[in-house]
């Protein structure tokens, strides 16, 4: 590796991302789809070659996933997860059925087999908690009546992914369906055990990790997250989930400080992850699959609006509030990309790449714009 070329490549890449990030911020849009598109135009023969820096980008992308999921885990306490699980169960079931079905059907029609269709179902289902939480803050809707319902939907979707991801990872590893079911059950029981963990255990663990110096705390957090992620990956249950669970266990002031310390790391490495996903997709194939992705996005947008509207009406919102809830839940984002990334690395049909990029692009941007107009 020639370090000078590698640095030049990375530097140029970051400048392009920063410019796009500024534009997105001006327009009040999420930056994730812009990073994805940037990734499309990098790489060999593209705007900026990524040859010497490719090893760093690969590792950086994995770190990006780990930090994304770690921070997601830190956002939620076991109590919040328990409360969300206890309420609105029917709404969550409807959310899954309505939004996973389009993925299954289209996946099967494209001839990807049951595994490919299952993964596409996850991609069409999961809304972007990152994009949506930011949208709620930006639009001053945290006080709205429909907001607790929206947030609890996001919590449950992320939790569903925490069980779904390990199952997919095991199936991708080429193990038998039985092994997939077994590891799914193991993952499910670990996730449930972490949720059921008494607050005191979380506090004890947090106190054990805590350190007065921010530097020491940061290094400790990195060590633990990477170690657990590595163990999870060794057992084929996806490194992302290990990091997610560590985040959930940490609580109180440690979690508060961890969020502050890790945020800049998450932002930088997540950007690398989105770019690296874009790199794997050929812009020409994006054009080729645009019609399918557009159809999928239209169905996915409508089905999410439907499940969100229904759930908000059911918990007592006015039809206006329910319309807001339905539209706000439309954006898909980081989790869909994480899923597609794991699937493609595991050898699922590579057409998943361009379809996911276009799907996330349309719904993250379209959903954010729509949310502004439905007042």
């Amino acid at each position: 590796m020639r370090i000078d070329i590698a640095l030049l490549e990375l530097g140029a890449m970051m400048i392009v991302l920063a410019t796009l990030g500024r534009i997105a911020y001006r327009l009040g849009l999420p930056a994730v789809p812009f990073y994805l598109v940037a990734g499309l135009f990098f790489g060999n023969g593209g705007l900026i070659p990524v040859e010497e820096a490719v090893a760093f980008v690969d590792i950086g992308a994995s770190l990006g996933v780990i930090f994304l999921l770690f921070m997601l885990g830190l956002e939620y306490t076991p109590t919040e997860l328990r409360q969300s699980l206890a309420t609105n169960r029917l709404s969550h079931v409807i959310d899954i059925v309505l939004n996973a079905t389009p993925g299954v059907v289209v996946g099967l029609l494209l001839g990807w087999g049951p595994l490919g269709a299952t993964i596409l179902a996850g991609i069409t289902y999961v809304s972007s908690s990152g994009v949506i939480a930011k949208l709620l803050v930006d639009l001053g809707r945290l006080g709205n009546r429909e907001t607790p319902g929206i947030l609890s939907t996001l919590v449950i979707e992320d939790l569903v992914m925490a069980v779904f991801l390990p199952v997919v990872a095991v199936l991708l590893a080429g193990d038998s369906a039985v092994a997939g079911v077994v590891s799914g059950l193991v993952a499910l029981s670990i996730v449930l055990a972490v949720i059921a963990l008494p607050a005191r255990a979380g506090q004890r663990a947090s106190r054990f990790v805590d350190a007065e110096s921010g530097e020491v705390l940061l290094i400790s957090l990195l060590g633990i997250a990477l170690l657990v992620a590595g163990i999870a990956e060794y057992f084929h249950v996806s490194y992302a989930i290990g990091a997610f669970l560590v985040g959930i266990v940490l609580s109180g002031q440690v979690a508060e400080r961890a969020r502050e310390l890790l945020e800049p790391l998450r932002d930088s490495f997540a950007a690398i992850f989105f770019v690296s996903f874009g790199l794997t997709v050929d812009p020409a194939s994006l054009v080729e699959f645009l019609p399918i992705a557009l159809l999928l996005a239209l169905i996915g947008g409508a089905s999410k609006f439907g499940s969100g509207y229904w759930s908000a009406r059911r918990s007592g919102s006015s039809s206006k509030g329910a319309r807001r809830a339905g539209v706000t839940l439309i954006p898909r984002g980081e989790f869909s990309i994480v899923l597609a990334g794991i699937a493609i690395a595991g050898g699922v049909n590579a057409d998943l790449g361009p379809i996911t990029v276009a799907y996330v692009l349309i719904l993250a941007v379209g959903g954010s714009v729509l949310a502004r107009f439905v007042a």
Partner: protein
Amino acid sequence: MEIFETPLPGIGVRYDFDSEAGRRIGVLVHRDGRRDILVYCEDDTDSCSETLRLSTAEAASLVELLGGTKITERLSDLRHEVQGLSIEWINVEPTSPLAGRTIGDGRIRTETGASVVAVLRDGESFPGPGPDFRFSTNDTALVTGSVEGVAKARRIISG
């Protein structure tokens, strides 16, 4: 005055109430201590017309301007420091099942393990009230115990 408490997963806790003038007002307590003041629309009480973001220091100043005391804030600090121990002020609303009844009637300590360590009434304090202490409307009880115990005691006292 009834204050509604709504947990917002990943964000914090929202408190809101209806003012006598018919407007709905809320306070959003972010997990990092920041506070937002929420003013709901007059015609659509499901949404906010204004969200004012306040830093911790600004929120404290506003409380002083509004003539409040800093006692609750000090207590919430205390709550962070002593993990596993919960201390809470609980109002005896007119609708409370314990208004006009004694602490013993509520079986608070037997049922929850938490204790009422003091009661405030019209600016006067009654430290260490016995089981025969009679609550009246608008009393404020200082309850301490385990987090779960205090939460249960809150349900007993505020109904």
